[in-house]
């Protein structure tokens, strides 16, 4: 399908057209940008760098019920994971790419019905990073691009008073069809303008890291003193992992209330002290040194060795939001130099 143009003045109409889907868009409250279901197109806040919590939460909610049970009843009541046809409007290419990467895990030796169902019914309409990306963004070092389309169904490029609309997949075509009355054909000049922005955005990325050979190298640095150094300041909170678009660890707990209960799964973080704690009291990752090492190794060694992709998309949330300025690029640089 050829590129189309959506005039910004008609954005509200476009979002209105999409309200037949479950429509999520970035919204702002205080200084926090979150993807939320919007009823009024005016709630959408598209002039943003990136959302505080990645849109992974839409397909992989922080807490979700798996099934419900009642005392005296042998049958479980399973929950239908479907949330209905969903459109996420205006997410960043890195976060969409993260979903494509994490999907490989949820579709691996066990096919996770919850994740896959919602992933299948979700259409991702990306918004290219056409203004200069944030100072810590490093998507180009890990295989992404500010205008990348991996994982996306539609890519929008902000051209000032209009968006260039590029349909990438069949799911995307469905959304474009819903908007067909609002779209016009793109002129050659529009495509050129977008291509120029793309090159500029790529140049605007200032931080880089060479990832070649990291996968093997990390394993050889198991007892290297660098881990103690880089983790010394770590507080053991979950900021880096909870706000990471590719982190996908979860815990499963039963919650019982009188004679009924539910089994729910909820995000977990490898930076928490009870994450690998055994019932015996033994913890194979007893300190933050081992936990930090695991976080880096998982992203840059274990995951790529299984699935071929680095489980990091360079969104830089962990760098920007770490309370003590533990910087994943700084750690990787030390790994490269070690």
């Amino acid at each position, binding site marked *: 399908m050829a590129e189309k143009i959506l005039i910004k003045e008609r954005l509200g109409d476009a979002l209105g057209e999409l309200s037949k889907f479950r429509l999520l868009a970035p919204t702002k409250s205080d200084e926090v940008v979150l993807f939320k279901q919007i009823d009024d197109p005016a709630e959408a806040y598209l002039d943003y760098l990136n959302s505080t919590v990645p849109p992974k939460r839409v397909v992989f909610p922080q807490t979700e*019920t798996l099934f*419900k049970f009642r005392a005296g009843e042998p049958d479980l009541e399973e*929950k239908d994971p479907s949330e209905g046809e969903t459109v996420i409007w205006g997410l960043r290419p890195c976060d969409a790419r993260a979903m494509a990467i994490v999907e490989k895990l949820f579709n691996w030796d066990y096919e996770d019905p919850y994740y896959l169902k919602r992933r299948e019914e979700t259409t991702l309409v990306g918004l290219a990073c056409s203004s200069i990306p944030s100072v810590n963004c490093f998507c180009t070092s890990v295989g992404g691009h500010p205008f990348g389309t991996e994982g996306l169904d539609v890519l929008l490029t902000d051209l000032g008073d209009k968006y260039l609309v590029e349909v990438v997949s069949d799911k995307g075509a469905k959304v474009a069809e819903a908007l067909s009355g609002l779209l016009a054909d793109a002129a050659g000049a529009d495509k050129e303008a977008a291509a120029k922005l793309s090159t500029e955005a790529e140049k605007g990325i200032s931080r880089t890291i060479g990832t070649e050979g990291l996968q093997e190298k990390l394993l050889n640095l198991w007892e290297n003193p660098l881990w103690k150094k880089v983790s010394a300041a770590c507080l053991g909170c979950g900021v880096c992992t909870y706000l990471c678009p590719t982190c996908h660890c979860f815990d499963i707990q039963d*919650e019982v*209330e009188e004679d*009924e*209960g*539910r089994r729910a799964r909820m995000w977990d973080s490898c930076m928490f002290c009870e994450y690998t704690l055994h019932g015996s009291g033994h913890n194979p990752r007893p300190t933050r040194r081992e936990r930090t090492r695991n976080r880096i190794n998982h992203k840059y060694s274990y995951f790529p060795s299984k699935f071929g992709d680095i489980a990091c998309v360079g969104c830089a949330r962990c760098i920007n939001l770490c309370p003590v300025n533990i910087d994943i690029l700084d750690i990787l640089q030390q790994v490269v130099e070690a």
Partner: protein
Amino acid sequence: MTEDKAKATVTTDFEPNIVAFLCNWCSYAGADLAGTSRIQYPANVKVIRVMCSGRVNPLFVMNALQQGADGVLVSGCHPGDCHYMHGNYYARRRFTLMRDFLEYLGVEPERFRASWVSASEGSKWKEVIEEVVEGVKSVGPMDQFKRRQLNW
């Protein structure tokens, strides 16, 4: 105000659920005396006996409100009468702060009360319960951070 609450306040058929933590030595005996003396008081209270009001963790209050209590009462010996000398003095500090804080978050102050009821004050127990129940009735069901359980 949620629909639930509005409805209950209007129809006044709302019977609040009140959890009362009573110390073994004074308030529990006081409530017992009210019972043996056949003093009628509202049946909205669920009594939990603890050894001392000082044993009541402020988190009990929070947890009770989460689990479906509309109001919480903590009751102990009068100051100076504590079986363990000072337990109720410690409790007093804790609950003064807790109550003020809950109020600050928007939990109506009627939902959390404390009282001193001695073993001989069966009739005071009745008055306390009447006042607590009336207070909670006036603010309706707890709907701030009650567990809306098993929300699918």
